[in-house]
């Protein structure tokens, strides 16, 4: 599942550090946005071993809540 179509059910938020991933996890939990902290899948490369799996449909809301520069977000990619 590497296509970027809107039907992809999950995406992952990648981070520059573990601390950034943990901080983002707290923000999404506070906003009641479904998420799951998982190990970065083998086929994706990231600085941090953790990433947050989210519903692809929530991507825009997540982007708003986690400003990339401020929160060390590397990107959001489909799973």
């Amino acid at each position, binding site marked *: 599942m590497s296509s970027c179509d809107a039907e992809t059910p999950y995406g992952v938020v990648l981070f520059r550090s*573990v601390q950034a991933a943990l901080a983002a996890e707290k923000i999404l939990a506070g906003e009641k946005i479904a998420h799951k*902290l998982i190990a970065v899948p083998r086929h994706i490369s990231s600085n941090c071993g953790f990433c947050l799996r989210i519903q692809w449909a929530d991507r825009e809301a997540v982007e708003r809540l986690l400003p990339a520069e401020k929160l060390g977000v590397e990107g959001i990619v489909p799973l």
Partner: protein
Amino acid sequence: MKQTVDARGLLCPQPVVLTLKALVSADEVVTIVDNQTAVENVTRLARSKGCAIAIDKKADGIYLTIHKGDAPVEMTQADAAVTCPSGEPAAGPLVLFVPSDCFGRGPEELGERLMGAFFHTLRDVEPKPATIVFMNTGVKLVVEGSRALEDIRALADSGIEVLACGTCLGYFKLMEKLSVGRVSNMFDIASILLKAGKIVEL
């Protein structure tokens, strides 16, 4: 009478057991093996039974030719309990032992998340354990509210036996919250650990 035992591809203790069975009735046994451990084990067996042994390494395997001595070869109680050296895959199921809700030693915040990520990843890696035993604070992973619950449930649904220590659930007052697997006791857990071919402890 001559007998051939093809033990290539077989794990300890099979080459020894099959050779011994053959030696009981045959005067000459040729056991073919494919690894050094089997060579050593069968050689040890032959010598302990007073047999002569010749080792011939061929392209398709190592041929161990054993000539029975004057005395008859019998299977004894000790032979039945052949022990296999560690480091070799032993017969018996793979058991995952989880004695903590944290993966590794260090900050809880990190350990709990590593454990969650481990069970999520376990769904996609092989080999799968036959049984997962949750003990001590490990039982917190199989109760309501656990971050690993969904993944452990999926593993249980795929046929993996999930056991939670009943004493531990009782200690943490979590018995009512058990959400996946079944409550187990020390007799079952001790037996599962002792019969395991391999135990992986987190």
